[in-house]
């Protein structure tokens, strides 16, 4: 009995000591008596020329891969949309045992998903033109101009009006009843869309890429059973056609960025690559607590009004020039919002990027970063910054870092 008691007492006490007692050792420092030797020393420095070299390349997201299709009649940018739809069927099955034959097309509707428009521009009208089914997918704006002549006009004055109140969302427009596949096009409908408006403007519609709905044609048709030798229009049907190819062509063509310009965004999408050369005191520092990349715009940021977008500085996994691999963790990137019309300095916090380079896994990464817009291919917005050759406007880096900390012994 006594033995049991002793064991229980010892067990209870030790269990309580182990589990019931916490440890809290933290006190407010009272200096100098009870402060630890040494303190964290911060340094803040502006690196005026941290970029050894830069390059900009356009073409990371091609026009036909973009999430939108652009129709524009702006003086600075002309653009038309090219669509090729699936084959219009001439037969359908009203029941599992019957087959119907296409008769009369009662009406045609074109459904568009409005991605973006300038609501200040009024009386927008989408004008439809006939295109040959097998138009060249690598065509240019100039080459397509003959197909946007009056002779190819499919539109009528009643068609294509976009209500002024619609800023985004789906609109269904009346298309001409004569909108049918051209002879010799194997039932394929190909359309060109241009924009007419009271004042020059641009309209972005969904392309079917990146989850944004594509234009759809609806044919409201009549027909008769194949067994009906009298061909009485006793059946009706709505046939929808999805596009098999969508793109747009524009003038002027953006081309490759000029040398010395850090170009990002636009369509085709551009990225800029910066290769950094960091001084020894920054490389050898214990830690970067804040790093800011300072860029200077070459011209005002382009894009739809109120269409702000993100500029990201992302680390590079392997530097293969224009085909460099981006570091997969996008949370490491430094980002900044850009607004159309914005000019002057743009600052990006790239502390996480420096922290990554300071880890054992990130140490082998090239000290190179890519500038790009986010998300790519879904914005027309673009920005151009001054490159390393620009002198005063060249990229700068402001770094706040911890000097080497001396712990000492004992």
């Amino acid at each position, binding site marked *: 009995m006594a033995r049991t008691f002793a064991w229980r007492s010892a067990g209870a*006490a030790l269990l309580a000591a182990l589990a019931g007692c916490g440890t*809290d050792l933290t006190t407010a420092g009272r200096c100098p008596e009870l402060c630890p030797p040494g303190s964290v020393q911060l340094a803040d420095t502006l690196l005026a020329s941290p970029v050894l070299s830069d390059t900009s390349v356009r073409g990371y997201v091609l026009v036909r891969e973009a999430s939108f299709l652009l129709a524009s009649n702006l003086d600075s940018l002309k653009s038309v949309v090219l669509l090729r739809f699936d084959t219009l069927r001439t037969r359908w099955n009203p029941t599992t045992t019957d087959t119907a034959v296409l008769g009369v097309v009662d009406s045609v509707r074109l459904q568009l998903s409005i991605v973006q428009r300038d609501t200040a521009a009024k009386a927008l009208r989408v004008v439809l033109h006939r295109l040959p089914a097998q138009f060249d997918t690598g065509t240019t704006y100039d080459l397509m101009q003959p197909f946007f002549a009056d002779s190819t006009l499919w539109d009528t004055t009643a068609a294509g009006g976009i209500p002024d109140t619609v800023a985004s969302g789906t609109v269904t427009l009346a298309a001409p009843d004569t909108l049918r596949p051209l002879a010799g096009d194997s039932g394929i409908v190909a359309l060109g869309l241009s924009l007419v408006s009271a004042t020059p403007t641009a309209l972005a519609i969904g392309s079917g890429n990146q989850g944004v709905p594509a234009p759809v044609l609806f044919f409201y048709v009549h027909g008769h059973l194949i067994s009906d030798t009298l061909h009485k229009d006793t059946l009706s049907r709505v046939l929808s056609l999805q596009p098999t190819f969508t793109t747009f062509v524009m003038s002027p063509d953006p081309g490759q960025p000029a040398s010395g310009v850090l170009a990002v965004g636009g369509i085709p999408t551009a990225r800029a690559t910066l290769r950094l050369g960091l001084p020894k005191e920054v490389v050898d520092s214990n830690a970067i607590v804040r790093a800011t990349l300072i860029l200077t715009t070459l011209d005002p940021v382009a894009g739809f009004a109120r269409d702000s977008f993100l500029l990201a500085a992302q680390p590079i996994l392997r530097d293969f020039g224009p085909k460099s691999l981006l570091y997969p963790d996008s949370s490491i990137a430094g980002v900044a919002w850009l607004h159309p019309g914005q000019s002057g300095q743009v600052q990006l916090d790239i502390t996480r990027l420096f922290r990554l380079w300071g880890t054992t896994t990130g140490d082998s990464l090239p000290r190179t970063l890519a500038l790009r817009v986010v998300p790519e291919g879904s914005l027309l917005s673009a920005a151009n910054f001054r490159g390393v050759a620009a002198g005063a406007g060249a990229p700068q880096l402001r770094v706040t870092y911890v000097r080497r900390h001396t712990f000492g012994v004992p």
Partner: protein
Amino acid sequence: MRRALGWLAAALVCAAPHARAQDSVFGIRGLGFLDEPLTGRSAGMGGGYALFDGGGVTNPASIAAWTGAVGWAAGAASRRTFDPGTGAQSLTSTRFPLFGFSTPLSPRLVVGIAASDYLDRNWSVEQADTLTLRDSAVAVTDATTSAGGITDLRAAAAYRVSGQWAVGLGLHVLTGSSVTTVRRDFPADTSYHSFQERSSTDYSGVGVSVGVFATPAPTVILGASARFNTRLKATGADTSARIRMPLELAAGVYYAPLPSLIFSSTVRYSAWGAAASDLVAAGQERSRDVWSVGVGLQAASLRMGGQAVPLRLGYRWRQLPFLIGGNGLNEHAFTAGLGLAGARGRANMDVAVELGSRSTGVLTERFTMAVVGVSIQP
């Protein structure tokens, strides 16, 4: 009743209003906070019994008291209050500062091993400040934390020369490490990212201790011990230092005028002043020679379940070796405890509570510590 006493013992460990273990805010200076590892019995008697305690590490001759194989351990939980001038703070910690094993090899020769805390380097300091960065005021919080300490591993042998004399020899190895972590946070500005760095320091050293007991009368035992240490080597990431360690002397008396009444006292002297120049060379404050005194009383007048339950009272006072802002640090405590025996004396538990304070200049740290010691003789 017995079960209630068991839970009371547990409550003493954790629910004491203010307690200290071996930690102290003053451990930030010098080599750390000098520990005084005691068994539950010695702690209850103010450390006065430390020189004669078979479970203690002060005198290697003390293990001669064991007549059979025995293992022992002590746990200590503490709460402290400290006011650095910005308001009192409550601190807590739990430690297991002592354990050991001993067995006779012959009727006269006893050997044993023990591990105990020697210098404690557990502390944490947090400071707030405002800096001007990039032309703006930025609030920062710096936290420096140290975890670890130096452990004393002792292998000892004691020999009962006669009924009146016993001698002992101990070989000590000082070993351990501490990890210091420095962290800076920017609590009010997310533009700045936190910084943290840690550094480890390893410690090593050796020592030898000798001790003796003399029994001039049936009710009196006199004891003395001396310990000699080599330099302590501290090795950091990119630097190292060698610190002279002190000569430690202790003497004490054990007096039992009645079978149920024991008086005991231990006085110790440690020449920590020898480390002063090495500490100054390493950027630390000087150290000083220190004294400590402990006195205690044990009365076995209470019986419970047919077993004697000794009650203990004590008082201890000591100087601590490392100066704080040029001032010496002193500590004193009142102690009380009791012993519970089970399994016909083969399983014993001793519980003690200390109430005390340590102060230097205007700085005072008050503490309450509960110690639970267990010894098992299989």
